[in-house]
């Protein structure tokens, strides 16, 4: 396949040989990277699935409570009750390096309100309390979900890239280089043989000439 024109010179041969060793080493390293990334990725994704299952279940529950509350209360009252939250949340983002992929890590700081309920209890229904309570308890998990899901996405992208590189090295570059090297060695050998035959032929001719000369002299 790699029958592209190459200069059959020793210099080219040497250059190709270094490239081949580099490619082999790169291939091995990338393969190791891919394997390790895959391992980490699967751990993260398993956690992600687990969290998602949990969070979705809890959120559906909270939504249900909320729906009941909005059925019991008028929408104006509901909106008024939720209009001014007691707390604000601030997010700190740091980056963690997983196999040279920067993934975000979230930590949050809540301003401490005395209560999570931004309303008095007189006008609202109990279902709303439950929904709000459920949501606020879910908060750390929601953030952890965001963290793992983003990490999983970023890692998946990097793994895909690495896998492509590994394959390109393994199935294209390395065989190509090996082919070229073989081609050059064969050409060089052929030249060597040609040269040898030529020399032998010349020697024969010279001997013959010498022989005839001495015969004439006699």
């Amino acid at each position, binding site marked *: 396949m790699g029958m592209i024109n190459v200069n059959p010179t020793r210099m080219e041969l040497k250059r190709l040989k270094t490239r081949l060793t580099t490619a082999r080493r790169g291939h091995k390293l990338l393969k190791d990277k891919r394997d390790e990334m*895959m391992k980490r*990725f*699967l751990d993260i*994704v*398993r956690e*992600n*699935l687990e969290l*998602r*299952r949990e*969070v*979705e279940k809890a*959120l*559906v529950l*909270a*939504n249900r409570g*909320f*729906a009941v509350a*909005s059925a019991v209360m008028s929408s104006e009252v*509901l*909106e008024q009750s*939720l*209009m001014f*939250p*007691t*707390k*604000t*949340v*601030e*997010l*700190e*983002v740091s*980056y963690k390096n997983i196999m040279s992929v*920067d*993934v*975000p890590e*979230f930590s*949050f700081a*809540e*301003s401490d309100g005395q209560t*999570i309920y*931004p309303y008095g209890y007189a006008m609202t229904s109990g279902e709303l309390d439950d*929904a*709000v309570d459920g*949501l*606020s308890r879910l*908060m750390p998990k*929601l*953030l952890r*979900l*965001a*963290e793992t*899901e*983003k990490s*999983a*996405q*970023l890692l*998946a*992208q990097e*793994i*895909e890239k690495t896998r492509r590189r590994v394959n390109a090295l393994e199935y294209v570059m390395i065989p190509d280089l090996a082919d070229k090297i073989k081609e050059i060695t064969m050409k060089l050998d052929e030249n060597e043989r040609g040269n040898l035959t030529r020399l032998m032929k010349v020697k024969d001719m010279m001997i013959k000439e010498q022989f005839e000369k001495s015969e004439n002299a006699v």
Partner: protein
Amino acid sequence: MAYKIAVLGERESVLAYKTLGFEVREAEEEETGAKELHALAKEGFAVIYITEQLACRVESEIAKYKDSPLPAIILIPGKTGSLGIGMKNVHAAVERAVGADILA
């Protein structure tokens, strides 16, 4: 630097998140949803929760942020319950990385 969290979706689904101190933006339609999404990303929200009901309409817009570290756009079930899109996305990530969904 301090970041903020936002929730994007239909009014009835996202109202409750106000109590958590999240920034709540309402959007029902594809157009407003996409606009709000890009606005939120530009304003420096690190995490954007978006309801599945809205997410399935602005899927291509969400995909634009998939490979950048921030913002993390996370699907959550809306008022009508889970549509399974969030789960599907996780499996899609597995398929992308491994080549086949081995956790299905």
